[in-house]
């Protein structure tokens, strides 16, 4: 049983902030099958297409029958902890700073034996549930947890290294004018965030939900127009050193593609809000977040983007908007690489049409803003990189994987 983590004390200004270090990074190309699984919160192992045996670690041929047909498939998570050991003076800087560090040998019910990082409540001989998690270098590692819930389970020291739990952390939700922003702020606060800063652009402009937002304990409304370079920089000057999680809830949806729009002013707004806003936020808040990746209990851990799933495949009815989202998706990959040395995760949350006024005429199913907020929290708690919220997003993903050309034709309706 583990003790709950304590709310962090104020920093001692005489001490140097601990700089982030990274666990070992190299992986084989095949092993990135686990990276994909970890990014999406799935547990996948290679399985032989000939004999059905599961294999681990990543291999080029089946250890049982030498067949080369080894595909990554979702696998049963259950196993038994055979043995454990505690590394007290590891040679790696990252682990040395975090020693003692427990690892163990887990015999999976589906066959293979895996070396895994251990939750403190895992006991030898007892059943465990295995997952792949992204560590501070962004690579997949196997992590074993007790099969059932244990007290303060999420507060485990080693688990918290793999995740971005909002508990005790300070969050910036960049756009509180939207329902998603307001729901996200409330959900993050309820998930234990110490403070949720909520950006509001053009504060002279009233908006729905404003009174409720301004009245909530632990939610602090700040002026932020992400598309304005100076506004983003000014806010970062105030709170940049205490943003542990940034939730980019920029939302600027306009219908239309190319031929039925005149000129570029609507597209310019889309780029201004979504793309340049992203850049402004990254330049204003990114450097401090990267620097604070190992700064105690409330270190900086994650940056979340809410993107349209049509970033992956253009939906001509909202064609220019789709393009702006594709641009943001590309930026997110750049940001992920640049924040990686700080161990800060970049999580993309893809949604289909959200139940807001800009998708009013779009038939259901539509994503409820509250579902997006809940996904943010669960994604942070799970330490994910990619999430698909709602049926439409999930379906687009699957259809894209199956046949991109078919999806292109199908979206042209």
């Amino acid at each position, binding site marked *: 049983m583990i003790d709950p983590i304590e709310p962090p004390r104020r920093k001692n200004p005489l001490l140097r902030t601990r700089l982030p270090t990274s666990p070992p990074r190299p992986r084989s190309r095949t092993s990135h099958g686990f990276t994909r699984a970890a990014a999406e919160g799935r547990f996948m192992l290679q399985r032989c297409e000939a004999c059905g045996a599961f294999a681990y670690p990543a291999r080029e041929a089946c250890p049982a029958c030498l067949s080369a047909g080894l595909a990554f498939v979702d696998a049963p998570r259950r196993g038994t902890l055979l043995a454990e050991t505690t590394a007290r003076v590891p040679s790696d800087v990252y682990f040395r700073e975090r020693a003692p560090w427990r690892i163990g040998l887990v015999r999976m019910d589906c066959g293979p034996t895996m070396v895994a990082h251990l939750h403190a409540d895992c006991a030898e001989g007892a059943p465990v549930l295995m997952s792949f998690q992204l560590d501070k270098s962004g690579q997949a590692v196997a992590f074993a947890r007790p099969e059932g819930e244990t007290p303060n389970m999420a507060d485990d020291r080693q688990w918290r290294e793999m995740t971005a739990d909002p508990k005790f952390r300070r969050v910036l939700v960049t756009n509180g004018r939207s329902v998603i922003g307001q729901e996200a702020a409330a959900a993050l606060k309820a998930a234990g965030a110490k403070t949720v800063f909520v950006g509001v652009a*053009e*504060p*002279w402009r*009233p908006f729905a939900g404003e009174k409720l937002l301004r009245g909530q304990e632990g939610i602090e409304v700040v002026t932020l127009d992400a598309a*304005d370079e*100076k506004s983003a920089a000014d806010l970062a000057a105030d709170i940049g050193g205490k943003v542990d999680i940034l939730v980019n809830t920029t939302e600027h949806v306009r219908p239309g593609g190319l031929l039925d729009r005149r000129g570029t002013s*609507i597209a310019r*707004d889309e780029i*201004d809000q979504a793309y340049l806003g992203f850049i402004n936020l990254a330049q204003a808040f990114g450097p401090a977040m990267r620097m604070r990746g190992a700064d105690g209990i409330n270190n900086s851990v994650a940056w979340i983007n809410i993107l349209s799933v049509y970033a992956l495949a253009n939906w001509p009815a909202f064609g220019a908007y789709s393009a702006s989202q594709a641009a943001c998706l590309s930026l997110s990959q750049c940001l992920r690489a640049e924040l990686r040395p700080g161990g800060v995760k970049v999580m993309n949350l893809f949604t289909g049409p959200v139940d807001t006024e800009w998708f009013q005429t779009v038939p259901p199913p539509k994503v409820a803003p509250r579902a997006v907020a809940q996904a943010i929290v669960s994604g942070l708690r799970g330490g994910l990189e990619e999430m698909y919220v709602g049926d439409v997003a999930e379906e687009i993903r699957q259809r894209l994987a199956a046949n991109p050309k078919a999806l292109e034709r199908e979206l042209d309706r």
Partner: protein
Amino acid sequence: MQSKNLLELAGAISSGAVRVVDLTFTLSPDFPVIVLPPEFGQAAPVRIQEISRYDGRGPAWYWNNVTFGEHTGTHFDAPIHWFTGKDLPNNAVDTMPPKDMIAPACVIDCSAEAAKDPDFVLTVPLVEAWEAKHGRIPERHWVLLRTDWSKKGWRDYSNLRDDGAHTPGPNPAVMKWLVEERRIIGFGTETIGTDAGQAGHFEPPYPAHHFLHGAGRYGLQCLCNLDQLPATGAVIVASPLKIQNGSGSPLRVIALVSAS
């Protein structure tokens, strides 16, 4: 006019005998802009993007790229801005006569009325009462409506409610009358437009725009410091940027005021 007089004017400005009052808000990204329903085309907000600031991007110099809509900040409306003025000659900021950029002003102080009622409208009887005190409004003068609106915080300044903006302005009759009977050169306000916040519901809608621009006259809005101007005798210098076929532009508006 003899050049001696112009030199006297320059001397008076230099000595302070003629005060120069800045009627302009700082052009900044956070200044409110006109709000239209979101399905309409929108004025681009003011954006200021640093090119360099004595740094690696340009070691010895500081400069910005600036973008904005023609109708942002303290700005000028040319006749081409409104459909009523679309076919007039020289109706854009680049073709308007430069001499129209300098003209005297009558300042009508309605700050007390506007303080009581955000939907206050200027009417013909109110202007006639002003004329009874200060004399008839001469031709080719600006009429500036002082409401002290520029002194408000920006939320109260734009004063948006769920039925639109509530800010003072002229009613249709007074605009028609000022344009036709007093032949003013233009109309200026402290608020976000030359028209009242609710002027979309007037008949015709947006009467300041409708009558001013239909007659080739001009508009000025988002003015400040009107409380520093006398009721008569100030001279307004308002020269918009020479934007090709431009419908208006942010500009620096100054007033020359005799200090005595």
